[in-house]
């Protein structure tokens, strides 16, 4: 018998999936039928149950610490307001069994002992499903709601975040299974924490750590200490470059490439045909950019009041005010003049009005097409190392994820790139992360 070349294929990379509750920006479309409450528990329950039905790794909540303002007044055009994440997730632990529960919590306006205790509590009461998306701010505007105010400069907020996570890990390690708690004695640049942690080691040891942001400091912080990176979505090539760069940094911290999952935040639009999906996507962009929102978007670039402008007319012909304080509670636009020039060029080239220009430049939905197209595109991103998976951001609360779970997940399963059942009980197990070892007393992590 002639030996044949074996035709076994290498197992395909498995896709990680998470669901983001629609947020307080104009990605979330609220003026359409089916748009439900952004605050009732029923909406959170619906979306979390849908994600669990789809066998997702985790459910993700963003954080809000100050309502946005524009021109000195509260911004009123987008969804405003949300509940406090850790409390919602504790309640969701009662109505889900496997789904990971991820809260975004700021290190600037919290203290490590209190937050480590709250996260360990969530991990205990969910049976090992807690995750923490570590974020920072240096925003004095947000600081006005807190005891300390806006007290950190940009560089210090990252050193504080790193020390914060390090102290939290020390606390989580301080009460090993079956032993007595060991006192912690941390004296650092930002924190002095002395005493015993009152929560025994939780099912995951440490909750899963997520890092959001693509900056240099963010990448290094992720390589040192995160289990998941929540990154901005970009094209295949840029995605692959980012992926390679972050994974390359892991070795310096003694970590393996599969110990850190890279998950861009993405949107999706489905249709029965490619044309129908495109049409639906364009309609969503028109909803996202109402006439009022178009003027506001332009005001954020120009930094001045444009309320006298017609959204269906031309863009302003003067240059932006670079020092404007018009928008508060938003990410600052680095080079408004460059954006204005780009917009004006586009408007001239295509004959677009102000609103049409904003619609045209508004981030397109990441994946648009038939369920089969979208499944193929997602798979291509993962198999070519532009991502390990995705954090899906639906456009509509609470039903926006259902079509994806009903129509795309089965196709990913057919491709052999997504689980057909949960095989573990903890989020670490879902993500294929190694168990968290207990570090020796007094030895901080490499954050």
């Amino acid at each position, binding site marked *: 018998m002639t030996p044949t070349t074996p035709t076994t294929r290498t197992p395909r990379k498995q896709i990680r999936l998470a669901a983001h509750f629609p947020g307080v920006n104009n990605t979330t479309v609220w003026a359409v039928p089916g748009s439900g409450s952004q605050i009732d528990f029923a909406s959170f329950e619906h979306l979390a149950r849908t994600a669990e039905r789809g066998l997702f790794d985790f459910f993700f909540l963003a954080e809000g610490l100050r309502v946005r303002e524009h021109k000195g007044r509260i911004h*009123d055009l987008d969804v405003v307001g949300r*509940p406090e994440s850790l409390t*919602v997730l*504790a309640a969701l632990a009662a109505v889900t069994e496997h789904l990971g529960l991820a809260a975004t919590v700021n290190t600037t306006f919290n203290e490590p002992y209190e937050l480590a205790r709250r996260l360990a509590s969530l991990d205990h009461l969910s049976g090992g499903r807690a995750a923490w998306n570590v974020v920072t701010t240096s925003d004095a505007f947000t600081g*006005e709601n807190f005891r300390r105010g806006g007290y950190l400069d940009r560089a210090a907020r990252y050193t504080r975040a790193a020390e914060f996570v390090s102290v939290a890990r020390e606390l989580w390690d301080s009460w090993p299974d079956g032993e007595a708690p060991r006192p912690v004695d941390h004296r650092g640049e930002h924190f002095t924490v002395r005493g015993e942690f009152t*929560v025994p080691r939780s099912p995951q040891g440490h909750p899963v750590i997520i890092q959001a942001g693509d900056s240099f400091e963010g990448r290094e912080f992720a390589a040192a200490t995160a289990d998941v990176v929540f990154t901005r979505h970009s094209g295949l090539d840029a995605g692959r470059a980012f992926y390679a760069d972050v994974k390359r940094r892991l070795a310096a911290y003694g970590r393996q490439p599969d110990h850190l999952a890279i998950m861009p935040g993405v949107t999706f639009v489905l249709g029965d045909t490619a044309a129908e999906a495109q049409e639906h996507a364009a309609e969503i962009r028109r909803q996202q950019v109402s006439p009022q929102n178009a003027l506001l978007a332009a005001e954020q670039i120009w930094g001045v009041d444009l309320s006298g402008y017609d959204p269906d007319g031309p863009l302003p012909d003067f240059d932006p005010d670079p020092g404007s304080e018009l928008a508060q509670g938003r990410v600052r636009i680095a080079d408004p003049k460059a954006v204005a020039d780009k917009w004006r060029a586009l408007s001239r080239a295509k004959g677009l009005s102000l609103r049409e220009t904003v619609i045209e430049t508004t981030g397109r939905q990441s994946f648009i097409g038939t369920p089969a197209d979208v499944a193929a595109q997602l798979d291509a991103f993962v198999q070519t190392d532009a991502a390990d998976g995705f954090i899906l951001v639906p456009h509509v609360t609470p039903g926006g994820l259902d079509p994806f779970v009903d129509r795309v997940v089965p196709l990913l399963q057919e491709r052999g790139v997504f689980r057909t059942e949960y095989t573990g009980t903890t989020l670490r197990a879902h993500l294929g992360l190694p168990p968290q070892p207990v570090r020796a007393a007094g030895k901080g992590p490499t954050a």
Partner: protein
Amino acid sequence: MPHPLHLAVALDTPQCSGRAAHDTVHDAAHVVALARLAERGGLTFVTLGDGFGRPGLDAPAVLARAAPATEHIGLIPTVTTTHTEPFHVSTTVATLDWVSRGRAGWAVEVSTTEADAALFGRRPAAPPAEVWAEAGEVADVAARLWDSWEDDAEIRDRATGRFIDRDKLHHVDFTGRTFSVRGPSIVPRPPQGRPVIAVDATDEPAREVAAAHADLALVRVEDPATAWTVREELRDRAATHGRDPGHLLVFASLPVELDDAADGAGLADLIADWRAAGAADGFHLRPADPGRDLALVVEATAPVLRARGLLRRPGHPGGTLREHLGLPRPASRYALARETA
């Protein structure tokens, strides 16, 4: 006393109860089961204590975990104010009210120990008078933040593209002795308007905070005459703060340790006697062993009180904790100010 008698129970495992208790204080499922048992017994609310030096999980998280597993019972966790951010305290309690559909309360507590202060390293321990004065301010600003969104602030007006009416969101601009908060809250107004604020008013200076800010004062007392006196005093002091004394309920907080059904019936007699003496609006029971004692309260004490017409039947439909307690739902102070402006 116009309202029905209320029974409530503390779900805390006393710290001296040995190794088995040591395990249950970190077992949220145990607390959830007790909350369900208390609900079946027709109790009005449960409390769960907390503090940074106390073994156990974060109390608001545990009661949030209990919220979807229960339907009627009020959920009152302790949240301390000394080392926490007032804004976070306010949003956590408001969110507990959202996830429980209007059944949240907040037991205000402080931290006075050096051990707690060392866990934060931010400020030294301070005497009770100081930290309770601050706690009063935290209760004040929390209520302002709960009011900072008027009930009908969300409008979803398609014609103007506005999701909210910005005139119905308000900066609170609170400046206290140790902190300031600009506001408004990030959380829309909770179902109860303001979740129920509870204070253990047994001692000064907490009693003054209760008179000024609480909906519910818990008083640890040993006889009905003392309870009556403290209740009268609290109501008088509430009036001096410009409050309607009827809006401050005073509960006698009693330690209980029951061995059998006869003990449970005896507890019913005692409660009926105290009630007849006008000693309290309700009774907050603090079991030595919640697993054992609560079952006897539900099986032996509550039925006797119900048979005497002193306690409501369990499973009354829906309703918020305020509604169960007979407390009005307060209008937002900012809505009132805007309407009278």
